[in-house]
């Protein structure tokens, strides 16, 4: 299909209501039909609009993988970084330019495996970032290899006889490391997910949402779980909403009930708050708060050195 055919006039039946927020010149996207990622983007855009955060303040950072492509389709300032490094990249953006609302949209392999160290440290620091972790239980872009989230006994190309390693319980992981907002929903829970993303965007501190998402092409096919629609039916029948459930009890077992809900919401000083407070306490009047990034609109050159 010619991408231009998708470019309908706004307000008419053939226009996508969110096309202002998507890079329509990049359509068609690479995601499979009935993948949960489209739902995640829809929920993200709706939540971002509802949050009333100025659009230019929102920055999206992704790592590598299927979900890693999210940054490329969202029409915000967006960064598609290296595998596992979305969170430290986002940390740099946030610390250098604290006005920004920096969101990470990436996959389970990217965030929890190769990027696992960064995830736990960002949670520990209560770095003011929003992380949307789309968990499809495997490395989908590379053809369906096992991930640290693959449930035991599930088949992946690198676990052809069934996975036997214990998977991460991600909400428990980030909760125990100090995340101050933690939720889990599935791609079926569009309304709850949208509300959760909005809450996360408006939360001060490290907010984390796990989105259980169907991967019909590799994970579901290899495990004979049916189509994306069958997985949605599964989420419908097997999701148990337990707000503020103990994250310790949110393990995911192969094709068993999934606990969903908002698990954690607490107020704690963010990294930047804590830094400022400590510097003020120790340095008093000698503390000069961060001057902020360079300003493209002022011709500071030599004076940069003196500010």
């Amino acid at each position, binding site marked *: 299909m010619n991408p231009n055919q998708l470019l309908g006039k706004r307000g008419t039946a053939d226009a996508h209501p969110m096309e202002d927020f998507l*890079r329509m*010149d*990049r359509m068609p996207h690479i995601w499979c039909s009935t993948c949960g990622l489209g739902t995640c983007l829809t929920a993200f855009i709706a939540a971002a609009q509802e949050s009333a955060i100025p*659009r*230019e*303040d929102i*920055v999206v*950072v992704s790592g590598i993988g299927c979900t890693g492509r999210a*940054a*490329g389709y969202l*029409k*915000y*300032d*967006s*960064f*598609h*970084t*290296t595998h*596992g*490094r979305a*969170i*430290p*990249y*986002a*940390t*740099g*953006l*946030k*610390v*250098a*330019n604290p*006005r*920004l609302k920096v969101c990470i949209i990436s996959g389970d392999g990217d965030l929890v495996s190769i990027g696992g*160290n*960064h995830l736990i*440290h960002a949670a520990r620091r209560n770095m003011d970032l929003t992380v949307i972790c789309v968990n499809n239980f495997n490395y989908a872009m590379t053809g369906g290899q096992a991930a640290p989230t693959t449930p035991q006994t599930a088949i992946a190309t690198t676990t052809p006889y069934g996975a036997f390693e214990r998977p991460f319980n991600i909400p428990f992981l980030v909760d125990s490391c100090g995340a101050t907002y933690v939720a889990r929903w599935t791609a079926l829970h569009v309304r709850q997910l949208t509300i959760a993303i909005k809450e996360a965007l408006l939360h001060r501190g490290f907010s984390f949402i796990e989105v259980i998402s169907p991967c019909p092409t590799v994970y579901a096919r290899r495990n004979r779980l049916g189509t994306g629609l069958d997985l949605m039916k599964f989420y419908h029948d097997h999701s148990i909403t337990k707000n503020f459930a103990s994250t310790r009890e949110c393990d995911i077992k192969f094709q068993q009930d999934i606990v969903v809900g908002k698990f954690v919401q607490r107020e704690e000083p963010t990294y930047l708050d804590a*830094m400022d407070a400590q*510097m003020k306490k120790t*340095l008093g009047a*000698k*503390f*000069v*708060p*961060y*001057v*902020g*990034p*360079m*300003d*493209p609109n002022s*011709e*500071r*050159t*030599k*004076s*940069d*050195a*003196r*500010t």
Partner: protein
Amino acid sequence: MNQRPRGPVLTGAHYLDGDHACAEGAIAAGCRFIAGYPITPSTEVAERLAERFPRIGGTFIQMEDELASIAAVLGAAWGGARAMTVTSGPGFSLMMENIGLGVMTETPCVVVNVQRGGPSTGLPTLTGQQDMMQARWGSHGDYEIIALSPSSPQECFDLTVTCFNLSEKYRVPVMFMMDECVGHMTEKVVIPEADTIDVWPRRWYRGPRDKYLPYAPDKDGVPPMIRAGDDHRVHITGLTHDARGYPIINAECQQICVSRLTDKIRDNADDLVMVKEEQLRGADVVVVAYGISARVATKAITDARKKGIKVGFLRLITVWPFPEKKIRDLAGKVGCLVMPEINLGQMYREVERAAAGKCRTMLVPHCGGWVHDPEDILKAIIEGAK
């Protein structure tokens, strides 16, 4: 006494080691963001900035590892900060992937490597010059990089400013290849008045907001830059991309994208190459050296001259892009090029390649851990003069 209020720049004469001078150079260059991870012998740069920054409006973050440090630096640069990270051998190895991202996304930043002996954990506290080729080729793929090498604490200050300027002008990560000896050597460092320090601005885009193409280059092959959060809605990716920054996965786009990344450095090599020349005219032998080896070589050169040997000295300040023309010209005029370096022949390969058999070339190798005995360099000079 009429004292001007003290700004961030420590104007005046100081007794500083190279690491601290580098930190002061970063401040003078307008760097207000540093992300780092402790590693000997570079830690003092980060420590000094951790102490200085909260007093002058900078921000220091100690990251969980070097992978995170360089990633944070790239993010900070796109956030609008002038950003730097500091490391040594093992950390430098960990940074390689994201240095490639910095090259691909044309992100201005400075990576300081206070070199120690390798491979692996090697000699944490002792000197080496063994990451010179890694600075050039360490990340995968074809690219060009800029790297400078200081020989004194004064140069650690001066050239750190230059590193920032070049990174902004060419939009590329610039490697500052110090070594443990220069980093821990304490000497007089003169820091000029802030307003006499030449600090180059970022190449800000000044056109209409919605017309910005992140990778549409100016005449010199370098595109202007924006800052995240200013509503340009850019997409920046490490994938091969077109002028819009959109991934285009085919050979044609690869050709355009990669050629420009390399050409913007290659075509401007004359602007980038800085060397110090001494008595090259009529020389029979020329010593080519950089970093601490250049300091040690001066003793051998002086001794050789006392023996009546006509020795010239070419000190490399820019190591990448390699001062190829200079070597090629010299090779046609002198009998022998002698190169001491604290490795088993890294930059020497470049010297050999550029000389292309037009004169003799001699390596004075050293495995690291200490500097050369000037006697060894002198012997090579005598041998080269035969």
